[in-house]
């Protein structure tokens, strides 16, 4: 083919420029350590790398969440350990105090120590974490969760219900509660002795409320332990035939009757008056308000015995002097209630500790898993977008040589001209 002079120049220039582009590309690749400098270099690779990058970021976030969850769970665990030690000591004290050979004074010391323990546990229940948040308050974490009223009755004012404990995501599908509410730890401890009763007015339409429950006859109560009694209300009738409802001050007079739920035995009845104490089966229920016909009050074994009341009550029992059989009996029953409930509390705490421990273990497993995944993801990303230096350097050398050759050829060819010889 015929070659024009300008074509010779152009060809030479083109090959030099191509070689220069390759050399520059090599320099940029080696300076950044990346094979893909912009998505157009490898669109599918760049897209995959970007997806992997998103996964890496979210996995790193899960790791951070885990780092935050761990100390909180660990603190809960430490607190539970401390509570456990206190309870063991309390149990020893109760066992010791039950011994009738103690003088009133020495039982008083035991009671004082029990109260000390109760206060220490109250302190733990209201403890805060490094962040200043109350550990057992649930999501109401800037307010002390436990309040004590004037007579030492402790109540829980923290968060309860769904979402009461903050949860953290440790993987796409796992969220982990990072604590326990005080209600679950200290208050909702199953009552074990069957001797503590409560009364419920659920489902009633009237204004009846329970003011208090208690035991009036210990042996009778003991024989009825675990039973449920129902107090039902109906209009009081007069003695006319047929009987007419009785009214007083324009209000219908109500009468109550008590039955044993297990066999339907009637245990007494009477006219109801606001604020009265109804006694049956060794128990007492104090009611106030106005019942409607058909309203019922259920007297049943308490479901929960909070640890503060358990300790308070046994301390109170120990502080009573032993004067007669009744008081000796009260001591023995009080101790047995306390011992059953302390044992119940210990196993309750064990359960919660196991729970928290399980969560810590899950967290550790997930953290390891996330760590492995991070390594995998980073390896894949590196395979896609990182530069193989050995390959890049040899490629660079090749292009460098090509550039030198193009330059030398250009210079040589341009020396050739017939005009040099004319």
């Amino acid at each position, binding site marked *: 083919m015929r070659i024009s*002079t300008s074509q010779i120049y152009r060809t030479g220039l083109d090959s030099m420029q191509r070689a220069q582009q390759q050399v520059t590309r090599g320099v940029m690749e080696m300076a950044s350590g990346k094979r893909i400098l912009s998505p157009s270099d*490898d669109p599918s690779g760049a897209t995959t790398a970007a997806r992997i990058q998103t996964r890496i970021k979210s996995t790193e976030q899960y790791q951070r969440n885990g780092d935050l969850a761990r100390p909180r769970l660990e603190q809960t665990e430490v607190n539970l350990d401390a509570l456990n030690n206190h309870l063991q000591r309390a149990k020893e004290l109760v066992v010791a105090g039950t011994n009738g050979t103690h003088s009133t004074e020495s039982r008083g010391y035991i009671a004082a120590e029990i109260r000390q323990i109760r206060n220490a546990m109250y302190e733990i229940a209201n403890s805060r974490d490094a962040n200043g948040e109350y550990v057992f308050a649930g999501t109401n974490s800037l307010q002390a969760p436990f309040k004590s009223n004037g007579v030492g009755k402790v109540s829980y004012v923290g968060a309860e219900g769904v979402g009461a404990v*903050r949860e953290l995501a440790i993987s796409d599908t796992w969220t982990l509660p990072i604590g326990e509410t005080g209600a679950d730890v200290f208050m909702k401890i199953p009552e074990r002795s069957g001797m503590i009763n409560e009364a419920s007015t659920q489902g009633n339409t009237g204004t009846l409320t329970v003011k208090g429950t208690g035991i009036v006859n210990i042996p009778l109560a003991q024989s009825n332990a675990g039973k449920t009694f129902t107090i039902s209300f109906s209009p009081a009738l007069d003695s006319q035939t047929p009987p007419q409802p009785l009214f007083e001050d324009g209000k219908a007079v109500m009468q109550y009757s008590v039955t044993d739920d297990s066999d339907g035995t009637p245990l007494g009845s009477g006219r109801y008056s606001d604020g009265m104490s109804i006694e049956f089966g060794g128990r007492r229920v104090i009611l106030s308000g106005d019942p409607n016909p058909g309203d019922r009050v259920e007297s049943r074994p308490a479901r929960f015995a909070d640890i503060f009341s358990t300790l308070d009550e046994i301390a109170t029992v120990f502080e009573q002097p032993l004067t007669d059989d009744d008081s000796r009996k009260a001591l023995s029953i009080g101790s047995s209630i306390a011992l059953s409930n302390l044992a119940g509390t210990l196993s309750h705490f064990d359960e919660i500790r196991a729970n928290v421990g399980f969560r810590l273990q899950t967290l550790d497993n997930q953290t390891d898993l996330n760590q492995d995944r991070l390594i995998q993801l980073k390896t894949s990303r590196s395979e896609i977008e990182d530069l193989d230096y050995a390959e890049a350097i040899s490629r660079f050398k090749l292009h460098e040589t090509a550039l030198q050759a193009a330059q030398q050829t250009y210079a040589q060819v341009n020396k050739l001209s017939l005009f040099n010889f004319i």
Partner: protein
Amino acid sequence: MTILGIGTSALLAFQRSLAVTGNNIGNSATEGYSRQRVELVPGDLNTFSIRRIADRFVDAQLRTAGADLGDAEVRSAYAGRVDRLVADSTTGLAPALSRFFDAANDLANDPTSAANRSLLFNESRALVERFGDLNGRLEEQRTRLNGEISQNVDEINQMAASLADINARVLDRSGGRTAPNDLLDQRDLLVNQLSKKVGVKTTIQDDGSMNVFIGSGQALVIGGTARQLTARPMSDDPINLDIGYVQSDGGAVKINRFITDGELGSLLKTRETVLDPAQNQIGLIAVNLGSLFNAGNRLGLDGNGEPGGDVFRVPEPVVRASSKNATTGLPAVSIENVKDMTPHDYRLRTDGAGFVLQRLPDEAVIPMTEDPDNPGQWLAAGLRIDTNDLASAGAGDAWLIQPTRIAADRIAMNPRLIDGSGFATAGAMNAQEHVDNAGKAKIVEVRALDASDPATLFEPATLRFEAGVPDARGQFAVETALGTQSFDLTTLDPDNTGIFKIQHNGWEITLRGQPADGDVFTVSRNEHHVGDNRNMLNLAGLAVENTIQGKATYAESYTGILADIGSRARQAEIALSASTTVFNEVTAQRESIAGVNLDEEAANLLRYQQAYQAAAQIIATSSTLFDSLLAAARS
């Protein structure tokens, strides 16, 4: 013929040849120059012509190759720039998005921390700024592209005028003895340059003039006259320039769709396939993220325990009326369901019978459904289009709807949100089961669904289970101060899965397990908001939800933009390298035919010099002969 005559003719012929060779040497570096040769008629030294050596077919190939090269150069330049822009770790959206959601997660981890709140507040601002900045950079590319369109059209007009002028001069000299080679070279060079701009087809008339056509046969130059093109907005979009033919009345006819080749065609295509989708997509991410984050934030309680407000100010779709509309009315377009929104522009048209919605740029008709509760309001593509102001619209009236084009620019922080306390970290509702419940039902979750009426939402509710009514499975009576409503279990859980949801007054509770008669659950306002992170967990969870068109997360959607632009840039690079190769090859062919080779010319120079010397020698010889004759006669 006398020997002297022969010598003189030869001398003149070689002198001419030497001059042409000299001209070739002189023009060896002139672009578009075609080498020339003196052609002698065998036996007749007095008749010679100067031929311009060129190949019309190779020239035509060169023009096509030039148009392809121009196309590929523009595409690869713009796609490459946009590619680097969106992928860059400082100008791209990906890092800002990921930092924003990291901050949301951190706040979820510790909702009591004021530092985390202010971090999220600042990351939100940074995200809004990043949207605006990215959009601004794409807008810069659009401005530059529109500028290049305008500049190209100016250059095309100048070249067309020059071509018409050359045609006129060629016509003037058409009767001359020698061909106007210099004019033909100029003309070919101009056509080649023009072809790179817009892609042309040419025909040579018998009188030697050249007619030039663009696109699919639209005349640009006919003989000595040139048509003028113009670049001005001719669609409803006031920013984008369109290409039009200038009419005699100064108006213009839009010819965008015919311009498909060369740099100009490529600029139009690039605007439609790279810039518009990228800006619309990024706008869609902005609108989607802003709307969903706002909606989520309104469902929770903020740092002060109050119901959350909007975090972002999300722009409404832009509507522009066509200048030819009979009515001045505008349809009111609002966002109906952000998850159904697409990254497309739309055109609403009246066809006399009703309204038609077309998707742009492919003009596919998108079905609209009329809202049964609001006649005249149409729902399509996640939008609500209210046509009630368009009563006086004439057939053919049209409106351009750009739901997300400038959204990335317009999205802003809600000015009422002045610090991080406005982020709703806590769930709005709390639910508890009564301590005396005998059944197995447990609360799984409670949350707000609609917080537009807080008084109703926060009305404390009691859910009481009643066994045996209305059928064996029983029902829940939900009691609030506003009234009682019953939900029977057969309707709530038709398949008896044991999990069911009750929705009432804007909240929803999920229960699992069989309740017993008389069991009570309560739902009320969450009073323990301080350390609650339920709502922020949901908001942070938006990062992994398929929110964009229900198919992709924000990060995936943005990666999709990267992939799309990246592969377009890659294609453009491949096209550039291919069309460069083709162009170089055709150029080499042309050069091989028409280019000057200096060695060849040097050889010719020697040859003609020697021939010239020989011819001079003929004259000298003839002179000697004559002298000899005179001397013989004298002696």
